[in-house]
């Protein structure tokens, strides 16, 4: 009889523990923090700089900055920066187009490639004259759309782009590699970089 009571007691304790664990798991926030990482390695000097910014923090800070060309999360760009190109019309065309290579330039000193692949805008630049500098940029189209989501033609919505980045998956956004330096910008859920 006492043994039976003990077994029932142990079962009750186990059931309560399981219930508490389940409640704790359900109460835990499902969202994990997302980070923008910037890593610069200079092998010639033996230097490395690693910056990790929580995207939530960046999204909260940007609208509060009103300095220079940055105001309320928007950055104003001069007409000359676009060189007369209608960027919105160009992006509309790219958005509606299937995956494709849009620009391929091969010169003596430089190769440039602009393409759309798997919902990303991809830019590759290879500078053959300058230590073989290689630049790779991969930006999700959603982020590009957010960047140009403002009403004004000469503005970029940086805050909206950051919010769009938060919703994007883990991705390497920019890599720059030359003979001595390596720059990498990426987003993921790890707080301590690589």
């Amino acid at each position, binding site marked *: 009889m006492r043994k039976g009571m003990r077994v029932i007691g142990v079962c009750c304790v186990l059931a309560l523990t399981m219930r508490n664990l389940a409640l704790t798991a359900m109460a835990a926030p499902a969202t994990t923090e997302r*980070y923008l990482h910037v890593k610069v390695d200079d092998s010639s000097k033996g230097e490395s700089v690693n910056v990790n910014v929580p995207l939530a923090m960046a999204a909260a*800070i940007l609208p509060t900055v009103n300095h220079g060309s940055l105001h309320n999360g928007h950055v104003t760009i001069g007409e000359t920066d676009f060189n007369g190109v209608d960027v919105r019309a160009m992006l509309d065309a790219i958005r509606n187009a299937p995956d494709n290579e849009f620009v391929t330039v091969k010169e003596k000193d430089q190769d440039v490639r602009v393409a759309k692949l798997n919902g990303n805008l991809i830019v590759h630049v290879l500078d053959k004259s300058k230590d073989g500098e290689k630049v790779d940029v991969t930006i999700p189209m959603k982020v590009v759309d957010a960047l140009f989501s403002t009403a004004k033609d000469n503005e970029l919505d940086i805050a909206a782009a950051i919010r769009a980045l938060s919703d994007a998956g883990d991705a390497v956004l920019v890599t720059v590699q030359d003979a001595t330096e390596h720059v990498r910008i990426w987003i993921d859920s790890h707080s301590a970089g690589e």
Partner: protein
Amino acid sequence: MVLLGKVALGIAGTALAGVGLICSEGMIEVKVVEKQPEVHHVYVLAPAMLVPMTMHFIPSRKLGNAAAEIKPWMPTIRAALEQLRAGEDVTLVEVREPGQHVLVTKSGGSVVVDVTDPDETVHVSAPIRAIESTVEQVAAASPDTQD
């Protein structure tokens, strides 16, 4: 005898509550080790609440210049500190050079800065809440009364 015991208990309780209150915002920790030319150790561990309390004793006119400069940036500072406090622990900045290492992290409720170079090692840890109240007090000082 019983009355004496009750008084002693009251005093001890009040002292304990006072210590608890003073330490409620955490502790500021500063550790400096100078390696050259002689080895010197400096270690300060102080309740973080003392810093904003001390700020009350600094005349406003002494803070006027700092207040004028910091005021436009207060919304940004508030947003950054709020997000930092609410977020997970993170290594914010890490710089490595030959012989030098700088690390800025958010650990628990504190911002921690560690600098190591051939001459000295510096470790500073300050609770975010104390940083917030100190910055708010600097910003609240009237810039009109600056020297």
